[in-house]
């Protein structure tokens, strides 16, 4: 097991003893330094989980220059993915969760939290509802592999420079982000629908877009769960993970 849990948020005392604040990921520190050198103040925040991963948040204006810096200056030539996170808590609350799970959680004394209406940003924080999310990596040199997840807050106009001139592979990912979230990428060669019919209206991956199938018929619904003969008690236990 190469994986090491050395994050500062570790609560397990055993793991924390050996690792808290002692482990410094020099390689990843160097990458953050590299981005700061190239982009200056445009790097808003960064977070390193030593031995695991690296996040860097840049301003939306510097979105393309971040890609250029990553590709040309730092050597992350490999484009992994590009997407968007909608941080709005679901306006439908928990109403679309499966009834079985809610019931199970209630039995276990774990009342599902009612999500607050405030935006709760994740790693590296954020200010706006929509956040760009992309990952690039340096590949091809054995032993020197590293990757970075780049983030950027999107302004209200939901417009940002396209990455296609830097990473040609961003083409389809940006089309997907455009159709699923309504983010416009300036400089993209053709923002067409990727998956949906060309006359589709709305942006399905936004949180306020209802998952209609769930709204019409709760799934799986407690009535759908067939009890095993003579296993009345266990059935409830099992259906949670073995559905």
């Amino acid at each position, binding site marked *: *097991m*190469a*994986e090491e*849990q050395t*994050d500062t*948020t*570790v*609560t*397990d005392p055993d*793991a924390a003893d050996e690792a808290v604040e002692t482990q410094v990921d020099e390689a990843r520190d160097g990458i953050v330094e590299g981005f700061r050198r190239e982009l200056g103040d445009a790097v808003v925040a960064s977070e390193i989980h030593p031995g*695991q*991963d690296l*996040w860097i948040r840049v301003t939306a204006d510097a979105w393309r220059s971040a890609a250029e810096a990553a590709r040309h200056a730092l050597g992350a*030539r*490999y*484009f*992994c*993915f590009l*997407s968007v*996170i*909608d941080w709005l*808590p*679901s306006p439908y609350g928990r109403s*679309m*969760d*499966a009834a079985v*799970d809610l019931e*199970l959680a209630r039995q*276990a004394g*774990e009342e*599902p*939290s009612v*999500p607050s209406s405030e935006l*709760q940003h*994740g*790693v590296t924080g954020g200010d706006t509802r929509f956040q760009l*999310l992309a*990952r690039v990596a340096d*590949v*091809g040199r*054995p032993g020197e*592999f590293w*990757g970075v*997840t780049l983030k950027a807050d999107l302004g209200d106009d939901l417009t940002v420079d396209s990455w296609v001139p830097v*990473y*040609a*592979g961003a083409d*389809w*990912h940006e089309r997907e982000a455009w159709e699923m979230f309504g983010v416009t990428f300036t400089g993209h060669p053709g923002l067409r*629908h*990727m*998956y949906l019919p060309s006359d589709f209206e709305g942006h*399905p*991956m936004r949180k306020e*877009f209802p*998952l209609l199938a*769930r709204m019409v018929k709760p799934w799986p619904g407690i009535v759908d769960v067939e009890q095993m003969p003579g296993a009345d008690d266990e059935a409830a236990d099992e259906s*949670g*993970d073995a*559905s």
Partner: protein
Amino acid sequence: MTAGTDRQKLQYIAARAADARVNVELETEGMTLNIGPQHPATHGTLRIVARLDGEQVIAAEPIAGYMHRGYEKIAEVRTYAQVTTLVNRIDWLGSFANEVPFILAAERLMEVEAPPRATWIRTLLFEMSRIANLILFLGDMGVQLGAITPVFFAFRDREYVLDQIERVTGGRFHPNFDRIGGLKDDLPKGWLEDTKRVMDKVRTFCDEIEDLLMGSEVFQERTRGIGVIPPDVAVQYGLSGANARASGIDWDLRRDACVGLAYPEVDWKVWTHPDGDSFARFWVRLQEVREATRIIDQLADGVPSGPVMAKVPRIIKVPAGEAWVSTENPLGEMGYYVVSQGDLTPFRLKIRSASFNNVSITPWLLRGVYVPDIVTILASLYFILGDIDR
């Protein structure tokens, strides 16, 4: 990488120059050919709209989405345990491999570690699903080229592998066997010995394919120098897995960023090929199947004893946080970006599937090729529709 680059460049330039000559000499009126969504070459429902000049492609535009199932959206209302059922169906030929990175990402957020035995069995099944998946590729490549016999051998020998997967997980295609913190069950008795016997059969199959298909002059004529992807283009488009390695990029997540799997414990090799053409992609995958049998043999010898499940709460609530875990799946890099806000369900799940990137190169790659080469190039890029339309 450097060894192949000059050769690739020359091949590429020569091919483009020849095409340009033909275009000037024999300019004809264009025609639009719609390939798919129902077409034998698209194994699934990928549609390609090709603008043709004679039999030469001027522009090709793949159109996906005929099978899009919205897993990223559905995952937001499903518990972590239920998501594995969904992701099983992304690359349906190597289902178990789809579960692993998601489970690993959830484990990372929960700070749970699977016990060593579970890790080894995961790695075993991971490689088994790689074999089950790639065997079919090796046979299917023949079908796309008109040789229908290899695919029957492929189906025959894949069945042995699927039988073994079924004996452990109960499912041939969709095992849904991985759990946060370990595995659902332990291995059945005698399974490891049988698996090693199956690996012998798989190696024999590889030899057969090498003789019957790869050794054929016609096969080489059809694939050598066709669909050449230079390494810098490959990484730009995010090609991963065998497609990248066939362009000479020495990169394998199993070796370079192995998370929570037992690859560092075994002795194996990353195969690359400098040419970047359809043949190279076939060759690399063939070697990968052989390498996978070697990995499985070694793993089967050293499975540690112990439990297969760590202590996890009965109701899985994942602490708030974000995690990205990707693994080297049969089709390439498959990763999940899991955003949790401490609930029963993921807040956002970004699925990075290999085929989506691998196929996004086709408009660039298909420009200037002939209609028959569309088929070989698509087959050699090897995509699963479920992996494009998540």
